């Protein structure tokens, strides 16, 4: 609390100290309305010394002004710097669970949309806290292409427009209005950036466009629920059922929120463990197709053996430790094969958050702190396939 002359102590209204030598002599005569109009500034110690003295002299013989002066000065004592306390990010889920425990929802948010709801709410809270300069802060986006890491420097606002552009694909699949013409995530992002630049879109507009669309997605998913969970969402390079597309968007939201947080030096935590587990599970399920894609593109050697779809074959045991962790058996021979414990030819162990950094192109396969055993080619195929899951 400040100790400006205006702050309230309990004694009489003669607060701002008279400045020696300044007032009186040639001070112009001031009328009652003028002196009254100065009371707010006086209480805040925001008048000239001469005005301060004139007001105080007036207070000795004007009861209504004296009364208001006390009242305003006491009000100054209530001014308080904003605490700017960040809410505990886990509070949201506890509060919502508490309320829903007392009265179950008639229209719940489907479990598969939960991580997207949680991640968009966290990013939204971060964006509410940042100022105009931070919206223009440089952010480096990184992803993995072929055999190497690539990147691009953009702004915080451009990152949010990117999220909105790709969320729009899911919006379209749900039958919501999609403001953009169809295209791959990259094409849509490029189109959105061009539109933002030519339309001089403000950061506030970027924020609210993203947020409104995200809310509409959650709401529509809640009303349609299981009827739409399997609806295919066509990204261009790949296709996911809607329930997985929501997870993919949650993952991207978190990854880019971390980019933003890092750019503006803001603390940001990984998702809640159960949500992180679902994200890792989705990535693990996408690995066999990613391995096959790299083989087709000549980026990885062909499979050793051909295995019929649905049959067990060689597998890599992926062990994710810590938050969101678990065990997955990744089929190595073809995307249709089944990975089993019996088929294990190699073992990779890494931390959950590290896994996500690899799958989002934030670290390269060589850098990934992976403890690996067994078939070296299998390990290499899987780590590179993980990295290749990353996009802009």
């Amino acid at each position: 609390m400040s100790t400006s002359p205006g702050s309230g102590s309990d004694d009489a209204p003669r607060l701002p100290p008279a400045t020696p030598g300044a007032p009186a002599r040639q001070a112009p005569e001031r009328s009652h309305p003028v002196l009254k109009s100065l009371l707010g500034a006086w209480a805040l110690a925001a008048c000239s010394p001469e005005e301060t003295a004139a007001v105080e002299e007036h207070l000795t013989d004007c009861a209504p002004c004296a009364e208001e002066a006390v009242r305003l000065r006491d009000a100054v004592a209530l001014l308080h710097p904003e605490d700017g306390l960040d809410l505990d990010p886990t509070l949201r889920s506890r509060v919502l669970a508490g309320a829903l425990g007392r009265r179950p929802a008639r229209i719940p948010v489907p479990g598969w949309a939960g991580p997207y709801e949680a991640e968009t709410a966290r990013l939204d809270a971060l964006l509410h806290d940042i100022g105009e300069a931070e919206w223009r802060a440089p952010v480096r986006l990184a992803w993995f292409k072929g055999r190497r890491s690539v990147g691009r420097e953009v702004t915080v606002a451009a990152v949010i427009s990117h999220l909105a552009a790709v969320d729009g694909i899911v919006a379209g699949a749900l039958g919501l209005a999609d403001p953009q013409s169809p295209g791959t995530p990259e094409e849509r992002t490029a189109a959105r950036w061009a539109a933002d630049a030519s339309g001089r879109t403000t950061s506030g507009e970027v924020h609210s466009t993203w947020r409104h669309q995200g809310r509409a997605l959650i709401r529509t998913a809640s009303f349609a629920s299981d009827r739409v969970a399997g609806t295919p969402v066509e990204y261009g390079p790949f296709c996911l059922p809607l329930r997985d597309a929501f997870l993919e968007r949650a993952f991207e939201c978190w990854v880019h929120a971390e980019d933003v947080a890092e750019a503006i030096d803001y603390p940001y935590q990984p998702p809640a463990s159960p949500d992180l587990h679902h994200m890792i599970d989705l990535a693990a399920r996408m690995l066999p197709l990613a391995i096959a894609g790299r083989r087709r593109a000549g980026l990885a050697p062909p499979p050793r053996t051909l295995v019929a779809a649905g049959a067990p074959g060689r597998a890599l045991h992926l062990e994710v430790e810590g938050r969101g962790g678990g065990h997955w058996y990744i089929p190595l021979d073809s995307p249709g094969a089944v990975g089993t414990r019996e088929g294990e030819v190699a073992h990779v162990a890494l931390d959950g958050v590290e896994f996500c950094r690899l799958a989002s192109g934030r670290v390269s396969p060589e850098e990934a702190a992976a403890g690996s055993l067994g078939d070296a080619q299998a390990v290499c195929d899987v780590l590179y396939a993980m990295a290749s899951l990353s996009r802009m």
Partner: protein
Amino acid sequence: MTNDAPPRWDRRMQQRLAHGEAAALGELYDRFASLVHGVAHRVLGDEGGADRVTRDVFAHAWEHADEYDPRQGSLRSWIAGLAHRHAVSRLRRAQDDGERPATEVEEKVRAASAAARADYIVTSMPAPLRAALDLAYFRRLDYRQAAARLGVTDDEARRRLRLGLQLLSTAHDGPRAVSPPGGRAAVR
């Protein structure tokens, strides 16, 4: 800016909550959690207590959305009122240990209430008044410097400072001052 959403948004939100739409509860939290937590924290001065008040307030709004009457004010002011009441009753329970004199408990509750109401008034007051107070109090500019910074006349700067403090002073007026005082029309 933290001013009220349009009344249509308030009514729509109330309907969605009453209808049992969980996504609406999430949106309500995202909009008002920091308001509720801030009021509770100002009254109680502790994080754990403020968390519990936040939990109680959103559970109440979810279970009893029909209690909100749009004719009485904005949804924001209703939520702030709930936060205030829940926080004050928690403070009173914590203070009232049977040993402290009742007058001391009441004085403490009164001071905490006024502080929380004042925070609410500041965040709800028209932006031009808030900006003037900010320059004069937190940045320690005199009213002429504040006028120059705001691009208004000296007269207007004086008027805003006085009106802002008048609004703020209603925080001392007692339990119902939690809804924003009706001075809004006075500002351009």
